[in-house]
């Protein structure tokens, strides 16, 4: 328990969403008191970090009041009753704007909630704000947003990772809430690892993409960033399942429900390209898994070396196609011109930032006549190899584990001018997206500079909840993830 607000006693700052719900149930504070304090946190720390770009005080307090009324009158409560949450700027919400952190969509107000947000609200969760991200979710450092950079709560001179950097910085610096991000090549897991949060990329198709601003449609998934895996389990169970408004969404029934006993340690995730302290930490977690009764065997994923190249072709090709709709006429900011072609090209030049333009250029090139077979066709072929190797490995083990990032959070500005240095952030995360499998990243301690280290576990299609069970059992053994950064929660 911590400080009091109004007449109630608020939960401890590091409390998980589940703990917050238990606290509300005891009546120690009202939902209005809880939400009011969380809004204050967003206005102070959330703004200082650059993580909270819109704070929806009026609608959140109104929803909190309704929740208190429901509770007082004994009406049925949702399974996320009273829990605050934020949505990334590329996820549509009926309040606030959904600009995907791009000048192209400046001021765009969605008229409806995305399916994921609507399902969460229907279970009593309260939308409190929108979180910063890289422009159109393209980036690994949250330095390309037109709302400005986000700072890592563990060291404010460093990046929080990306593209869901705002969500991760919020999840890593304070408890209570959960945060929706999207993961196309690691955009939930890598920032979660950089900020000491738990991040889950569900199986492709498990969570409806309706209302998600498209980047790479065959790779994109909405997922939660939370304090721990139990919260991620609950949030995913509310969001998941077939949505008639997204033809690619599916309901999954896991073939197995037993715990994941046999773990494959991906040997390519322990090469010298990975920072020594991250490798060391991975070995320590392997030992812990063995003590917990798991069998850990080394597994080779030879296609990992091709995954980043494959991803750069497929993601940029899909991005160039998806972003073609932003032409300044139907959608997006317009630069008026006497000439139609000029209107398009000037509007797009002005509306998109440098990283998005670079990816559109590359995507256009790999799809252009004379190059499409050599690049896009080849990448699709390699993608199939990656998927087949991954599924073949997952026939022999329940889960594959490796680090999330090859290095610790880097300094703001350190990599921004070199696209290859930024794309190197993705080398261990893109494989799960290319294969469409679920992957969870959890914090696994700190390096000698006090920066969080995250490891990830991948499973077969549909094994999302088994993965989260495994993550929960690890977090029950070591609660170092509970700690908040100095000053982060004040």
């Amino acid at each position: 328990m911590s400080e009091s607000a109004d007449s109630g006693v608020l939960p401890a700052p590091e409390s998980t969403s589940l703990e917050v719900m238990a606290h509300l149930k005891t009546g120690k504070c009202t939902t209005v008191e809880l939400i009011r304090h969380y809004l204050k946190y967003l206005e102070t720390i959330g703004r200082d970090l650059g993580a909270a770009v819109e704070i929806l005080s009026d609608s959140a307090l109104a929803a909190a009041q309704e929740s208190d009324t429901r509770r007082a009158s004994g009406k049925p409560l949702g399974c996320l009753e009273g829990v605050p949450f934020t949505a990334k700027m590329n996820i549509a919400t009926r309040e606030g704007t959904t600009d995907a952190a791009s000048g192209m969509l400046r001021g765009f107000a969605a008229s409806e909630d995305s399916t994921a947000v609507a399902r969460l609200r229907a279970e009593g969760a309260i939308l409190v704000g929108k979180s910063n991200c890289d422009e159109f979710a393209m980036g690994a450092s949250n330095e390309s947003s037109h709302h400005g950079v986000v700072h890592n709560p563990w060291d404010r001179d460093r990046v929080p990772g990306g593209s869901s950097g705002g969500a991760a910085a919020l999840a890593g610096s304070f408890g209570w809430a959960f945060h929706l991000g999207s993961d196309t090549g690691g955009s939930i897991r890598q920032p979660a690892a950089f900020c000491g949060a738990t991040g889950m990329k569900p199986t492709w198709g498990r969570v409806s993409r309706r209302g998600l601003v498209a980047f790479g449609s065959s790779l994109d998934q909405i997922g939660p960033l939370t304090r721990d895996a139990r919260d991620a389990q609950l949030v995913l169970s509310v969001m998941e399942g077939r949505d008639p408004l997204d033809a690619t969404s599916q309901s999954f029934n896991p073939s197995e429900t037993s715990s994941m006993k046999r773990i494959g340690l991906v040997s390519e995730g322990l090469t010298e390209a990975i920072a020594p302290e991250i490798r060391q930490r991975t070995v320590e977690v392997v030992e812990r898994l063995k003590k917990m009764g798991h069998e850990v065997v080394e597994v080779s994923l030879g296609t990992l070396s091709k995954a980043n190249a494959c991803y750069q072709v497929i993601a940029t090709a899909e991005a160039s196609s998806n972003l073609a709709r932003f032409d300044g006429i139907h959608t997006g900011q317009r630069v008026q011109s006497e000439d139609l072609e000029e209107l398009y090209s000037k509007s797009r030049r002005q509306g998109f930032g440098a990283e998005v333009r670079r990816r559109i250029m590359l995507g256009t090139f790999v799809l252009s006549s004379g190059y499409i077979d050599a690049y896009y066709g080849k990448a699709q072929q390699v993608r199939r190899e990656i998927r087949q190797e991954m599924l073949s490995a997952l026939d022999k083990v329940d889960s594959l584990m490796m680090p999330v990032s090859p290095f610790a959070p880097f300094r703001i500005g350190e990599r921004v001018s070199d696209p290859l240095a930024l794309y190197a952030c993705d080398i261990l995360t893109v494989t799960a997206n290319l294969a469409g499998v679920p992957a969870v990243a959890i914090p696994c301690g700190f390096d000698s500079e006090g920066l969080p280290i995250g490891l990830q576990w991948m499973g077969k299609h549909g094994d999302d909840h088994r993965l989260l069970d495994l993550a929960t059992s690890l977090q029950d053994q070591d609660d170092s993830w509970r700690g908040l950064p100095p000053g982060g929660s004040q």
Partner: protein
Amino acid sequence: MVTDESHPGTDSGRPPIDAELVRKTARLARLEIDESEIPQMVEHMEKILDLVADLGIGSGSQSDSFSETEGESTLPVSEWREDVAATEGQPGGPRDPKVLGSNAPDWRDGAFVTPRVVGGD
């Protein structure tokens, strides 16, 4: 090597990237590009395409192309949603014109008012 024989490849298997290729790609992408930006774009595209050469560009057949839904159970037609228009209040249904209109530059007599696409104000 790339499939188009008019573009001889480099040692890494990628075609040479020059200012003209960047201008052509920018035209296809409908992106205005300033002459001063071209040298850096050439450099970045070269670097990225060298990275992409790890794929073994141009080798092998394309017959094994990927489909995201392959191997997954696809939804039977009987489970598709009914092909009926959503009504007001349902997701995807007609929406409050005031809400929709908030994204338009102007709203007059029940219609969006936007600038002319070409010519005039």
